[in-house]
């Protein structure tokens, strides 16, 4: 495990400790990459709680989406950094499988945007593979402009909606 991964694991442990009632099920094996020193569960009641290997953990540790310029499907430096964190996270959860969905702003025609969304998803997928993620773990889809996260007709919203969003679809902790 390299230093970066260790840092992520430590961050996860810290976040778990923040939960007022750590959601541990005694009857089921806990999925975790390495033995983690369980901090003293003191009366801390602030911050979100999530399990290691969960979607929330993935979002917190890596970031689940990368953003694109107007009418573009090439990756910015910031997008590459996010995808490298995603690849690192996936390396520590080797059973996890992901779906990368390409999204577009509403300022384009429908089929054009479905194609553009696919380009964005594939750009992210190709980069993840270049960072060591096995291709069989990464599927893609395009929602075009059909699933915007921001509904207003403004440039701020459109920029948010131009993304490739990664979701865990298997081999992760619910």
């Amino acid at each position, binding site marked *: 495990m390299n230093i970066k991964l260790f840092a992520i694991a430590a961050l996860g442990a810290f976040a778990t400790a923040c939960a007022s009632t750590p959601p541990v099920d005694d009857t089921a094996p806990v999925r975790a990459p390495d033995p983690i020193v369980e901090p003293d569960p003191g009366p801390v009641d602030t911050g979100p709680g999530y399990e290691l290997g969960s979607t929330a953990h993935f979002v917190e540790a890596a970031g689940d989406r990368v953003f694109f310029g107007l009418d573009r499907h090439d990756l910015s430096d910031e997008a590459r950094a996010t995808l490298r964190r995603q690849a690192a996270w996936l390396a520590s959860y080797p059973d996890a499988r992901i779906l990368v969905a390409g999204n577009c702003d*509403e300022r384009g*025609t*429908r089929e*054009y945007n479905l*194609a553009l969304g696919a380009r964005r998803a594939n750009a992210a997928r190709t980069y993840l593979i270049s960072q060591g993620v096995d291709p069989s773990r990464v*599927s893609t889809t395009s929602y075009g402009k*059909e699933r915007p996260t921001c*509904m207003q007709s403004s440039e701020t919203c459109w920029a948010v909606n131009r993304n490739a969003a990664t979701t865990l679809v298997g081999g992760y902790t619910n």
Partner: protein
Amino acid sequence: MTRILVLIAAFLALLGWSGVVTAQEPLRVDVTQGNLDPMPIAVPDFVGVSDEAMRRGADITRVVANDLASSGLFAPVDQEAFIEDITNIDLRPRFSDWRVINADALLVGSVTIQEDGRLVVGFRLWDTRLEEQLLGLQYRTAPENWRRVAHRLADAVYERLTGETGYFNTRIVYVSEGRGIEGEPIRQLALMDQDGANPSFLTDRSYMALLPNYSPSAQEITYVSFLDGQATTYLYNLETGRQEALFASGGAGAASQVDPDGQSLSARFSPDGSELAVSIETRSGHDIHLFDLRTRNLQRLTQHPADDVEPSFSPDGERIVFSSARGGGSQLYVMDRDGSDVQRVTFGSGRYTTPVWSPRGDLIAFTKQIGGQFALGVVRADGSGIERILFEGYFVDTPAWSPNGRVLLFTRGEPRTNGTRYEIWSVDLAGFNLRRLATGGMASDPAWSPLIE
């Protein structure tokens, strides 16, 4: 008459179109004239001997007058102005009574209900100035088909007065748009008559359905479904309700050639209905494919690294227009049906998408995006690059031709505080007669059926 001819000539000159139009008929409306001078037509309530027949006659009259008015080429005269009370359509009207209220044409009709319940609908179309009958027809039909008869009657009147085939006895499939309880997008296919009557849903709210297209027989549609989690081309039989995914991964035949993650998009029928042109995604991008509906053979027509999408056949089936980013920005290209002889047909700045070949063959409708605005336009298919803009606005998408190639439906979007509002609008080929289609709520992606037999 002279006045109409002058207008036609002026209009053709305006468009830069060659050819001389000579009007042989006493009354003639040129469809390219737009709404510069709609022809006044009087349509008294169709007569009937029983109360039931009279009610049905009034219903049919309303549908016919609405059809004619919606074309922008006819102006039904207010019934309040009528002088003569038509009671028998087999008697010659008092033409002076109709001329004095400026009705150039007079449409009278009757409804008879037979003992078996069937309707007999007859009509006569008169030229009030020449005092001549232009057309007289009779239809017999099951009572529930009264709207179909009304539309066919309106088509007959339109055809007699314009020389063009009508488009009123048609249906429209479109996407009904909404939002669910949790804000999730709802995109359902819906079907209605051309005038908004008889609406129904074809798909439910559980998955998104987009981009429908009609088969030449009007019995089937293709559309893009998200039932399987990604855009997949479906074939939907409107008579049986049966539907199938054409290119789902892991299937037999054509499906085995498609990458598991490859989406398949809007498929358009060849004019004979035997093939589909469709853009299918591979890892390297989107390419135009030809799919034989009988043999299930899938043939790749384009190989360019840029995305090739939105194919549409020419009416002779020999050529296919599509949009592609191969020249940088998205532009329109035409190729032979085997993928050879690719010619660029648009050259303007901005992004050209959604090409649809006119049923008349000479024009291709498109959406153009430039400077934060959208436009609906037509360009000559011959590569001359001559284009004409019919409508400009905040958002335009998915043009669809009327079966006679004189009217376009399209998705129109306008910004609202809670997001863009989408509706379906129509405009004629001259850029006149802009109207909203009578859909219930938000709507997009119109597909116009052929004339229904």
